[in-house]
């Protein structure tokens, strides 16, 4: 009977192909949306993991989060180095990690920070060691892969966040790669980490306390020295929930500081983008239903022409369930082919998009990652195909064989 279904489908190949493509487009749209939004949210969550609050210069809180947590926007400005010490003195602050941004090397951002930043992002060394002295750098996995830089490699940072190669460059202050990180699937893969002092040095700012490189040195030592040294942002991890309530207000009362909570800003951003995603999602569902309707119409007309055939099948011994099964399998084969093609298409488009748009790739779009929701989409598509086939099949089976034979003879 399956062979008979295939024979019928082959018999009207164009119709079959068109229906499969129609359903595939619907499935693909839904899969693309699902993968895109889930991977986006997943990436947002992963990058912001462990960061409870970001303190930076006043401006847009979203911009502050985007620039210092996700490294996609330009920073809001700088804050005095004292801020780090100020934060570390606050009760409930478990960790405060300064970031100094501003330079890049071949589109990869150079981040002046402390070794603790790598720990916070869950990164570990694939080779070499962490940076210790100024101008030593540790590169993320993707930086290593794309620039081909190995340990001992010297490079010169360029001013600015994006180009690096066309902007003014800091020729006199080369960095040296001392370590390479394992891939983490987070933003740190695309970063070049170095000491804050390196960033200052590159920009001709004298670090307060050049000689003190020890890890154990407390930040409190620094505050005694007034210095022009600044940081771009400070990532804060809370030690107690009270800090989450108390600290943002405290920070925002400081004249030139603002605090931003990644979770809040990201949900605001996703809410903005989400309206668009919902609209497209509704459209994709519509597309899939249209495909179901098309299969329904195609099978309905095909089965009408085949009423005689079906009566004949009954005459030569096919039972009602067998005929119902045959028609249902036709619908299911259509739906399954459409679903399979749609899944391939969806993942293919994601893969192509990631390959052709650097931004999407940086976002961590992965064509090979599967989402449990895809099973739901596939099941829905199969159900549509099955129902589209069964309704006309039942109609045909209602009719009287002797009459059908007489009429189509």
């Amino acid at each position, binding site marked *: 009977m399956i*062979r*008979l279904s295939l*024979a*019928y489908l*082959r*018999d009207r190949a164009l119709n079959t192909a068109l229906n499969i493509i129609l359903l595939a487009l619907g499935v693909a749209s839904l899969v693309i949306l699902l993968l895109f939004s889930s991977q986006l949210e997943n990436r947002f969550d992963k990058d912001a993991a462990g960061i409870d609050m970001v303190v930076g210069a006043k401006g847009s809180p979203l911009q502050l989060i985007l620039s210092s947590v996700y490294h996609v926007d330009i920073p809001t400005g700088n804050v005095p180095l004292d801020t780090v010490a100020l934060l570390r003195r606050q009760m409930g602050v478990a960790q405060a990690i300064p970031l100094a941004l501003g330079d890049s090397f071949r589109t990869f951002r150079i981040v002046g920070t402390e070794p603790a930043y790598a720990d916070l992002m869950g990164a570990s060394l694939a080779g070499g060691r962490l940076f210790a002295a100024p101008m030593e750098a540790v590169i993320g996995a993707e930086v290593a892969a794309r620039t081909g830089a190995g340990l001992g490699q010297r490079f010169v940072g360029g001013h600015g966040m994006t180009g690096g190669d066309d902007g003014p460059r800091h020729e006199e202050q080369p960095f040296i790669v001392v370590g390479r990180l394992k891939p983490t699937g987070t933003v740190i893969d695309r970063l070049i980490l170095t000491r804050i002092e390196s960033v200052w040095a590159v920009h001709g700012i004298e670090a307060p306390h050049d000689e003190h490189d020890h890890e154990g040195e407390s930040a409190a030592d620094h505050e005694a020295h007034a210095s022009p040294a600044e940081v771009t942002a400070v990532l804060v991890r809370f030690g107690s929930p009270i800090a989450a309530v108390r600290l943002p207000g405290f920070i925002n009362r400081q004249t030139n500081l603002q605090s931003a909570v990644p979770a809040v800003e990201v949900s605001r951003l996703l809410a903005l983008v989400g309206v668009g995603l919902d609209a497209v999602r509704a459209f994709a569902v519509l597309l899939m239903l249209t495909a179901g309707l098309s299969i329904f119409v195609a099978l309905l007309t095909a089965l009408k022409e085949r009423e*005689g*055939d079906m009566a*004949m*099948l*009954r*005459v*030569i*011994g*096919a*039972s009602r369930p*067998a005929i119902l099964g045959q028609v249902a399998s036709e619908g299911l084969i259509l739906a399954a082919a459409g679903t399979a093609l749609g899944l391939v298409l969806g993942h293919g488009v994601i893969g192509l998009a990631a390959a052709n748009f650097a931004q999407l790739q940086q976002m961590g779009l992965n064509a090979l990652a599967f989402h449990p929701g895809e099973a739901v989409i596939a099941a829905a598509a199969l159900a549509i195909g099955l129902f589209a086939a069964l309704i006309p099949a039942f109609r045909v089976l209602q009719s009287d*064989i*002797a009459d059908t*034979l*007489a009429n189509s*003879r």
Partner: protein
Amino acid sequence: METRGLSHVRDGRTVMQIGDWQLQPRAHALLLGPSGSGKTSFINIATGLLTPSHGSIQIAGQPMSALPPASRDALRRQTIGLVFQTLRLIPALSVSANLALAQQLALGRVDAAEIDRLIARVGLSHRAHARPRQLSQGEGQRAAIARALATRPRLLVADEPTSALDDANAAAMIDLMFETADATGATLLVATHDGRIAHRFANRLNLVAPA
């Protein structure tokens, strides 16, 4: 085959009246009568597609008209091969696939050698893989006979098998049906208003349009 007091009423009008009649195994019979005399109704009743309003009919010792639908299907599947006037092959399948499907449905297995033999017997070996719509009228009819015989039926029922054919083809068709029925041990029941083939049958059942 044996009928008792068989008649059929449709929309308040008697469309077929046979009464008592018997057909012995291998005694090929002709069902003769003008249009509207109830030939098709009788065939539908004999094959269990239609329930008679009066009387009963036995096929191979079983009360076809009294069986529930599923058992009728089974009885028809196991004992009867049907040939209709036109088409009745599945257009999406080749000739040999049509035969294979019939075997699969009736016997639950496919006997490829038997299919080849039957197709050769009706002279269609060169067209075994052609689609039904590529066949000529005569070729299609021969294929339909082969399909009806593929299940090795004990009763081969043909409804107007020759009315669309010219004299030579009609004669050839009857020859073929006799020959194949004898070869497979089947009993023939042919309904027709075609006088050209009437002389070939020893048994006749003459139907008249009921008043």
